């Protein structure tokens, strides 16, 4: 497979306003985040200012504008998952990885609380590096995280 470059990613999109968000999503998914350099190239291609690209990019959860940690653990804390004990899962991850939710101390791990993913009937829901796990328990949690450690 040829290595994806920012140039050949944006060429998949016509330079129209409605393709700005899809292109940003794709760049963020492929490279992990949208860098300043990427934003510059995007801005030229779409004929808008660089700040406009950053304004849009920084608004959306799925688009990252900074390098992400190696292991990003996200746990839904919306009401249905809360009723299904997501807060005890959050504490367990904090203890296990010795980190605090929302604060990144290293480039290795980060724990974030996130909004409902629409899988409320199968909560608590956890996402590790984009992969979704349902009905997480304290014991299943350990085996899931082991795969990444």
């Amino acid at each position, binding site marked *: 497979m040829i290595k994806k470059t920012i140039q050949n990613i944006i060429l998949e999109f016509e330079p129209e306003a409605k393709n700005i968000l899809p292109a940003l999503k794709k760049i963020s998914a492929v490279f992990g985040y949208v860098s300043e350099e990427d934003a510059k190239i995007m801005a030229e291609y779409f004929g808008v200012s660089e700040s406009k690209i950053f304004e849009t990019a920084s608004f959306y959860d799925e688009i990252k504008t900074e390098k992400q940690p190696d292991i990003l653990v996200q746990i839904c804390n*919306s009401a*249905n998952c809360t009723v299904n004990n997501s807060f005890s899962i959050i504490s367990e991850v904090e203890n296990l990885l010795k980190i605090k939710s929302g604060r990144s101390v290293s480039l290795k791990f980060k724990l974030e609380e996130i909004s409902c*993913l*629409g899988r409320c009937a199968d909560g608590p829901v956890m996402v590790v590096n984009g992969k979704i796990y349902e009905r997480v328990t304290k014991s299943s949690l350990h085996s899931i995280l082991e795969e990444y450690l």
Partner: protein
Amino acid sequence: MKDIKIITEHWGKINPLKIEDYINAGGYTALEKFVFKMNPEKAIEEIKNSGLRGRGGAGFSTGDKLGMVANQKEKKYFICNLEESEPGTYKDRLIVDNNPHLLLEGIIISALIVGAQKAYIYINGNYEKQKEILEKALAQSREKKYWGENILGSAYNLEIEIFSGAGAYICGEETALINSIEGNRGEPKIRPPFPTEMGLFGKPTVVDNAETIANIPWIISNGGKKYSAIGSKNSPGTKIFLLNGAVEKPGTYEAPTGITVKKLIDEYAGGIKRGKEFWFVQIGGACGKLLLEKELKAKMEFGKECECPLGSGSILVVDKGVNIYDLLISWTDFFRRESCGKCVPCREGTFRLWEIAKRFRDGEISARDKEAIQDILWTLDNTTFCPLGKFAGTAFRDVVEKLKIL
């Protein structure tokens, strides 16, 4: 239960990935009827007569909305709102999972009614699997000439495109959604002008919720009058309810509007889960009100006049074993995170409520905090730019006023 099923009728009985199954079950006959036997005016009349109101929250008359845009001569757009990020809500996802062609048929008919040549399906960014299902279904229906050029050999043309969101609750709000397709930050715009006058790319646009749209084929096939006889008078039809939490049979139930919460819990969801003690229910997701036992006779309807706006149709039954401080943090953290930041009262107010919720949990709440709560709730309710801010304090207020534990 012998309830009439409109949305869920074929769920589990047909293979959602096979268009033939849907066609054999009578699918796409409403589209044929519309194309060959009706004109847009007649279809709008039927939808107006049905009394159908939008299922996306605001409960606006769908027939009126379609009519407003149909009347205009310019280029127009139709958008199916499948953002669905209200916590506890996944009914639109289930529609796609179980019968995507019903939704597509509704989208095609609605777009043709308003005279749009282009329709967008704005789908929640997390719904990747559903996006794939829709892509497959779209390819199948295009091949059968249900959309594209010269639909079923007629003069109607329609293009349909899926647009995937990128993780922002506010993008379910129609003007924010439009901003997002246009490549902007997903912030709401001032209304008026409403999207029906000046929507996507400045053109008249209808934004309809996916569940609303899924009712359209039935109304076209069976007539508006028949639809209006189902369920409640002021907002007829059926509604998908999602029951979760401390009930025996959590699940998805289609029931007529106007049904009481109590009946949904007792007769559909098998009653309160054995061994649990009922505390309250939350109706309609994070924005929703809390109801105590004595209020469960509230009828589930849409519109300003009704007792309990049913919102998205999600019902979370909370028992006394749940830690209320965790829930307060859950609600406040949601609005803090999802506030788009455009206006100060919402950006600051949601943040401060979240801080107060954390102090409650940690037992560090002060008299000043308790006073501040009232101010913040008032400010959210009265001074924010869009409904997100207005409803950000609803559940918090109900905890203060109804549960009386703070």
